[in-house]
């Protein structure tokens, strides 16, 4: 039953299965809604893959070390390009096989990347401006 807001129920997935999974979702006609990244604070991040077919969502959860490259699904879903680059900016994650890698310049300029290594990480503090 499709619903507009749901307590997240995501199937865990392993890093090496992500691309194959994406391919199979693509073939079944799923639309990639987006990916979400959360810093878990213990050196890992949760990466969620949200898919949709006829308004019904399917989620996958990849728990992954922050400092290791994540397989990119952008060769399968071109649309993943933006969100993966965004995560690259925000969490300093690296993606393997990203079709167009902005290399942390999608949103950020040197002023930020040289002073904060990853603005969306848990223990980073928001920079105060006076």
């Amino acid at each position: 039953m499709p619903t507009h807001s749901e307590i997240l129920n995501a199937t865990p997935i392993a890093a090496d299965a992500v691309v194959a999974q994406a391919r199979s979702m693509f073939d079944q006609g799923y639309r990639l809604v987006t990916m979400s990244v959360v810093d878990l604070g213990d050196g890992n991040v949760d990466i969620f893959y949200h898919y949709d077919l006829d308004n019904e969502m399917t989620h996958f959860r990849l728990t992954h070390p922050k400092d290791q490259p994540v397989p990119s699904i952008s060769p399968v879903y071109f649309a993943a390009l933006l969100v993966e680059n965004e995560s690259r900016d925000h969490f300093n994650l690296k993606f393997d096989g990203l079709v167009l890698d902005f290399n942390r310049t999608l949103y950020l300029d040197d002023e930020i990347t040289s002073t904060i290594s990853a603005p969306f990480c848990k223990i980073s503090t928001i920079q105060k401006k006076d």
Partner: protein
Amino acid sequence: MGLLENWINKGRLKSPWVVHFDCGSCNGCDIEVLACLTPVFDVERFGIINVGNPKHADVLLVTGTVNHRNKKVLKNIYDQMPDPKAVIAIGACGTSGGVFRECYNVVGGVDQVIPVDVYVPGCPAKPDAIIDGVVTALDVVKAKLGLGEMPKVTVID
């Protein structure tokens, strides 16, 4: 030359062409700026045209917060406006950074990068306020030309 000078000054007060730059605005202020051009507010009454090109503009309308990427653009645009020129910062974001001023990628208000002549508060500033802002800017210009007094700041009235 006196007469021509007078005419030119008159022109300056009656033909403030604007260029609008959206530094990171939430669009709230943007669409209100745009609304000013449309029939119900129609700032063309004051000779205002949105020229869209800094080289043709006399007044720079800035909405939104300045961030690290657009601050260079803002400066570039300001530099490409021929003198005399004025800057109006619109909305909480443009004047101070608004709700976003503590975000990591936000530099703050427009005055962090270029001199600002008029601050228009509001979130968003409604078209009436923007019109007031332009009128105030014209008063500022007038004062700078030595033709009038600087508009007063009313904190509490």
